[in-house]
């Protein structure tokens, strides 16, 4: 019988487990995010540096090709510094991708007031955010740790020396450093998108959340002649974290280096702030005080 001839009938079939419902949100969020040609364009653009890095690894491990292409230029060293540079590049592409994708995941729901209907289904607010976060984290993984680990694996394969075992900590650093950034970006992206319903403004606000505190921190450091203002400078904080996780040589002068504990506290505080924002904004019903 055709569907249009069906009368209303109750459903008595199989149900999916309650714990898998956030994955429904993830699936639809991924489809929503990647339906845009701009997302695809950004993704391809984000992979271009990896192609360059792959070529560099190839040249570094192939003396004949190096001699032909570089004609006696500076030697290429594939080490922690190389992977730090690759990770930093990819992670900043991650910020660009977040600023585009995160508002698409949340702002549509908030803009059309879809939360009452979404949350009237057997899914909690935590489940809702988990589903969206997983979608964003997966999308960011495509441009951060996955391509960086592909570079690592290619270097392991290409290297003539027993390189892998001595540099295994690099892989751990790439993976861990990427996830610190992914978690932070997911929280900031979702919180800003939940706070600002308009997508274009949310995109700008995500960049602002990263760079405006950096400027404020810089001003504070200059006026007070202290290094602690750098704690508000997310690019500096993240560079320090990645450098330490990969065991790369320090970039900052020693007097400006920040304690790991302080940086961890700043990141945790940023995440808690985002959780507070999400707790206020992601509700089926707003309660008017007074």
């Amino acid at each position, binding site marked *: 019988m055709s*569907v*249009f001839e*069906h*009368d*209303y*009938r*109750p*459903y*008595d*079939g*199989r*149900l*999916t487990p*309650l714990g898998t*419902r956030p994955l*429904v*949100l993830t699936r*639809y969020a991924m489809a929503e995010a990647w339906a845009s040609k701009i997302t695809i364009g950004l993704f391809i653009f984000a992979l271009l540096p990896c192609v360059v890095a792959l070529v560099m690894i190839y040249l570094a491990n192939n003396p004949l090709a190096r001699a032909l292409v570089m004609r006696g230029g500076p030697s290429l060293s594939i080490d922690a510094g190389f992977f730090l540079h690759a990770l930093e590049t990819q992670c900043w592409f991650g910020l660009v991708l977040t600023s585009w994708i995160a508002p698409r995941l949340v702002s*549509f*729901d908030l*803009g*059309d*007031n*879809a*939360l*009452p*209907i*979404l*949350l*009237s*289904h*057997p*899914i*909690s607010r935590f489940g809702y955010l988990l589903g969206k976060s997983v979608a964003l984290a997966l999308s960011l993984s495509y441009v951060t740790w996955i391509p960086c680990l592909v570079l690592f694996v290619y270097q392991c394969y290409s290297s003539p020396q027993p390189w892998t075992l001595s540099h295994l900590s690099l892989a751990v650093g790439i993976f861990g450093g990427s996830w610190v950034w992914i978690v932070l970006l997911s929280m900031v992206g979702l919180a800003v998108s939940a706070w600002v319903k308009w997508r274009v403004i949310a995109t700008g606000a995500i960049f602002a959340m990263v760079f405006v505190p950096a400027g404020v921190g810089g001003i504070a450091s200059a006026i007070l002649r202290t290094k602690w203002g750098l704690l508000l400078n997310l690019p500096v904080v993240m560079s320090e974290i990645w450098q330490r996780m990969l065991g790369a040589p320090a970039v900052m002068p020693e007097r400006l280096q920040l304690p790991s504990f302080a940086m961890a506290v700043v990141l945790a505080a940023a995440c808690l702030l985002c959780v507070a924002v999400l707790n206020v904004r992601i*509700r*089926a*019903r707003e*309660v*008017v*005080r*007074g």
Partner: protein
Amino acid sequence: MGVIELDRLEVRLGGRTVLAGLTGELRGHAIGLLGPNGAGKSTLINTLLGFHEPASGVARVLGLDARVDRMRIRQSVGYMPENDSFIGNMNGVRFVRYMAELAGLPPAEALERAHEALFYVGLGEVRYRKISTYSLGMKQLIKLAQGLAHGPKLLILDEPTNGLDPTARQRMIQLIKDIRKQGATHLLISSHLLRDIDETCDEVLILNKGRIAAISNIEEERRSHRNFIELEMAGSTEGFTKKMQSLGCECASFAGGRVKVVMPDAMSARDLYVTAGEFGVQIRRIQLRRDSLEDIFLRAMEYEGSRVDHVRV
């Protein structure tokens, strides 16, 4: 087991008591939630869905505690909110499928049920259009479709005819009646429009200022008044009323030849004409009168000012 059970339910929002000590049990198949604006209808629905935490007391839906079993309640309930609530850049079928999957249907079944639900509510032809392009009536219908798609045991409709033109309203009312007739789904319909509740519900909970003004079984009320007849007669009505009383009727005569009669079940309107013929009086107008929901509502509102607990009208 009642569909909805309330036991001294109190809900406080933003420092105000919005629902104050509601106690009652609703067992009807289609339950109307009636009350003036700000009476607490939507708050009660939100509490039943677990959106608001009760300050004290208990609310049960289908025997499940709204405070602790909210996921199981949401599994069994379909909800059509009062205001616009959808994802505008999705097409109709994708949106309904999405909601059905969230309710636990596997993707293939969810897709099939989404198509069925959309055809059922009359959106079959526009199901591939983006929801943002729908008219207001269509948006109401797609909210109903998503509430139905997963086959809930209880369907909660918050102001379902809000903003609809007469044709769309009639269509919505007809759909609600159809769902009620199918018998598989209980209905909880919130409205401030008496006519909507009167046409669709068999039990009504009347709220006023966060309190229960009345719980009334509309069907019983109707049955108890089904033989209440108002007559307009020409000629002397004295003999007629005496004869009717001797036949077991309750009669009252008024000026202008008006007579009110409550007949026993065994009698019919034909007996009135036979008796009138016997006494040579004319029946010029006959009106079968029943207690309308409006009477019940107004009576409840009058009682509400002077009572402590809820009354059963």
